[in-house]
């Protein structure tokens, strides 16, 4: 009987929206927390990793964010904001804080995950191009890099990404344009020809 109730709760939580899941988390529902985590932790980690370029720091940032979700879920006010917007904002702010601290890690040492599919030569060329682009992104100013990561890693539209970065859509678009211009210049200087 208890298993049926638990299974029913899991089934219900799978179709609940984030606000409802947070309400359940506030009541100590660990399965709701797991559901929330499975929905958002992957993209949150990708965002942190693309901004920071270091896996360890990215993990710490995501853990810190989800720790706040668990401990302070009761303080959540439903309907006032999207959970993903809040979560990405926490991630971006924490990453920018970390980036401002002095570090001994090479900023261009971006780790790239292996891509097992496709032809070997094409894979190699694509990996080289991606590595060059990732290195160029790593040299961008912090906020420009965050804008690039929000757009191309999380797939947020400009309005949502601007809300995450707490700026107007126009300002965000300007940030993106400057970032792309810088990337083109950097890649042109590296390769001798623009993309």
């Amino acid at each position, binding site marked *: 009987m208890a298993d049926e109730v638990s299974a029913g709760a899991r089934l219900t939580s799978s179709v609940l929206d984030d606000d409802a899941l947070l309400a359940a988390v506030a009541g100590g529902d660990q399965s709701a927390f797991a559901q929330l985590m499975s929905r958002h932790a992957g993209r949150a980690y990708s965002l942190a990793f693309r901004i920071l370029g270091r896996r360890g720091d990215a993990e710490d940032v995501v853990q810190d964010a989800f720790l706040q979700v668990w401990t302070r879920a009761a303080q959540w*006010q439903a309907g*006032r904001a999207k959970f993903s917007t809040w979560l990405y904002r926490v991630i971006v702010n924490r990453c920018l804080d970390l980036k401002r601290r002095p570090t001994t890690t090479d900023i261009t040492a971006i780790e790239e995950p292996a891509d097992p599919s496709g032809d070997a030569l094409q894979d190699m060329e694509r990996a080289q191009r991606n590595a060059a682009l990732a290195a160029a992104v790593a040299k961008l100013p912090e906020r420009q890099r965050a804008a690039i990561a929000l757009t*191309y890693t999380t797939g947020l539209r400009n309005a949502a990404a601007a809300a995450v970065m707490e700026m107007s859509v126009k300002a965000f678009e300007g940030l993106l344009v400057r970032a792309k211009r810088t990337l083109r210049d950097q890649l042109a200087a590296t390769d001798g020809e623009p993309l």
Partner: protein
Amino acid sequence: MMEKEFDLERDLTQAMAPVEMPASLQQRLSRIPLEHPQQSTGTVVRFQAHEKKMSGLDRLSADWPMVGTATASRRSFAWGLTSSLTAAAASLLLGVFLGANIVSDQLGLTRQSADQQQLADTAYDGTVSTDTTDNDGALLDDDNVAMIYAAADLPGVLP
């Protein structure tokens, strides 16, 4: 140009693609409910993205626990606002102090000039002389007359 733009877009999409979350992080996140107690309801979480009507002061005083990580820009904003308010309060106090001094000085001058005017008016009425040298002169004249009467051996009573 459009082709180059398309290439950059495509390459950015590939280079910035989401990465797989490490299993170690998955485990760390799964342990959170077991290792950390939840906080009771006390303050209401505010989400600034949907509070466009909030003023800067409201945003500063808003409860930020869920935001958690205050950015340097927020800290500098708070510092700037605090220092601005302090400077404004100091300026106001200084202005009030100087203004009070000026007003008190003007009141003193007005009172003095009013006294002088009153003195002049009474002197014009003949009740009081404003110049003591005139009184001295009158006394001096009386003495001279008395001396004349004395010299003439007349009773020393003035007419």
